[in-house]
């Protein structure tokens, strides 16, 4: 499944154009994105399902390079907004594929992580893979998710394309697995515009199996 590419893309103007230049794009009759209709759909590796409040674009899974339990959606394109799903990530797994020899690495998820540790793991993801040069926590608070004691992390970050973006992650660790939905969008206009969709998706989330 998708390898948190949205996050990398969101934070990177260079990223998108690089991808679109090598991806097949829409011109050859094949898109990097697939349509998500307004219906209950499984996300990630299928351990979580949500209802899209309107038609969404799901980034297609890339074999080998993507993490099975992570999936990315976008409404206006990944530079402007994105919603990522983590559907029951196991202990010692990574949010994104990375080379073992890379100097800078996104920390692995551990089952005993507390919300500040999960927030810090995500912060490193933005900094290491997304090119963020500044990231501020706006709030970290308890919030029920999927019927469990979860958290809500609000934050904003300045990326190397000089744009400020804002995000919200809602998640919980259930039976040692990380379930999370993460929203990240340009701070100006797009965050506020798409936030109701995100909240509706979070409210609709159900755990499967």
């Amino acid at each position, binding site marked *: 499944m998708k390898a948190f590419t949205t996050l990398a893309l969101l934070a990177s*103007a260079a990223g998108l154009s690089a991808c679109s230049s090598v991806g097949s794009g829409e011109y050859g009759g094949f898109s990097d994105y697939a349509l998500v209709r307004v219906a209950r759909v499984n996300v990630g590796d299928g351990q979580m399902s949500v209802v899209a409040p309107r038609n969404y674009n799901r980034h297609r899974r890339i074999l080998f390079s993507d993490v099975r339990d992570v999936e990315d959606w976008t409404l206006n394109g990944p530079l402007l907004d994105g919603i990522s799903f983590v559907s029951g990530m196991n202990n010692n797994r990574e949010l994104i594929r990375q080379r073992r020899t890379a100097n800078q690495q996104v920390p692995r998820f551990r089952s005993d992580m507390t919300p500040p540790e999960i927030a810090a793991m995500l912060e490193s993801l933005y900094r290491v893979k997304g090119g963020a040069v500044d990231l501020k926590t706006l709030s970290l608070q308890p919030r029920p998710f999927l019927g469990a004691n979860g958290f809500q992390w609000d934050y904003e970050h300045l990326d190397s394309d000089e744009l400020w973006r804002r995000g919200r992650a809602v998640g919980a660790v259930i039976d040692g697995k990380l379930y999370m939905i993460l929203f990240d969008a340009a701070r100006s206009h797009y965050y506020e515009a798409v936030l109701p969709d995100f909240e509706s998706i979070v409210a609709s989330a159900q755990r499967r199996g």
Partner: protein
Amino acid sequence: MCMRCANLTRRSLLAGGAVAAASLHTGVAQARIRPQDMAPLIGPGFKPTDKDEQGLWKEMERAEEEIAGSNLVIRDPKLTSYLQNIIGTVGGPAAKDFRIYLVRIPDFNAMMFPSGFAVVFSGLLLRMRNEAQLAGVIAHESGHFLRRHQIRSWRDQRRKTDLFAIGAMLAGVGGAAGGVYLGDYVRLAELGTILSLFQYSREMEAEADAIGSKNMAAAGYPPVEMSNIWQQLIGEENASARYRGKHRRRGSLFDTHPSSDARMADLRADAAELTVPGKVYDNGRARYLSTIGEIRPTLLDDQVKLNDPGASQYLIETLAQDGWNGLLRFYEGEIWRLRNRTGDDVRAAQSYAAAVVYPDAPADAWRWHGISLMKQGRRAEAKAAFNRYLTMKPDAPDAAWVRQMAG
């Protein structure tokens, strides 16, 4: 697929910035050039008279405008005037003409653009142990301008390059320098060409070292600090690479091989020549620390959160040579916590516990100390640590979560 994109992000910017730059790290010296042989090739108020250089300056004006307006620029009047004063001291005849910008990028780099403005990365401020080292880097970069390296290199490279229009290359330079470089693979190829556009030769690096050392010594800084900087840079790169089980990168932008040892030896010889017996030199450490004191936690934060344990640990230990404190112990703990290998939670907990003993321990040290204690089942102590955190930072953004833990 898009993993490749991610790799183009900040690095593209760095590479782009370094274009005009031919940054701090490029090239190496082979034959030592003596400081006393190095005279500036320009005087105060220099303006280009040749048409090609005038054109180059015009493009650089645009690049400077973009940089000056960038969100990445740190607009702290105290730091800005501090840097401006340093370049005004070690900048030789062009001292009063230089402009200098501090940008929020956690890397060891600084660069001089062909029209006389310099860009310093925030990561440089973290790595310098005193004002003399910072002045050394700035003097080195100023040296490139004083010896007219950019225009010389540009003319040389232009002769070799006919793949892309020069104007288009410079447009790329401007965009890259401003951090808005929208690189795709086609442009990346172009970037590769641009990168070679202002590449300094080894001889140029040797000249910049020599004139930089001379100007630094003339300003009253101990010239030996120039070689200390290189020693620290090489040490950090080695530590980072060794940690991931590989050799330090070679042939890259950040290369100082093959003769980094020779270069350091040359710098030490320069320092010996320039040091006047009996003269008192001031490395300005106290002034440096008091000036960057407020931003230092941010600089450490930016570095450590990149989760490059080899480099971060080397940096912390280098800074700790001037004495451990609560801030450094806290970030030592952060390195272990983010590394997150077996046993690292114990190491992190020990560092947090050590950090909070110091009076300068940041509030965050108390929070993480509390979390570590909580995980060990020491609830009463954890609660006390959380309360301490909330007292120090009552409006902390995560106060709601911490209160729940403390409750």
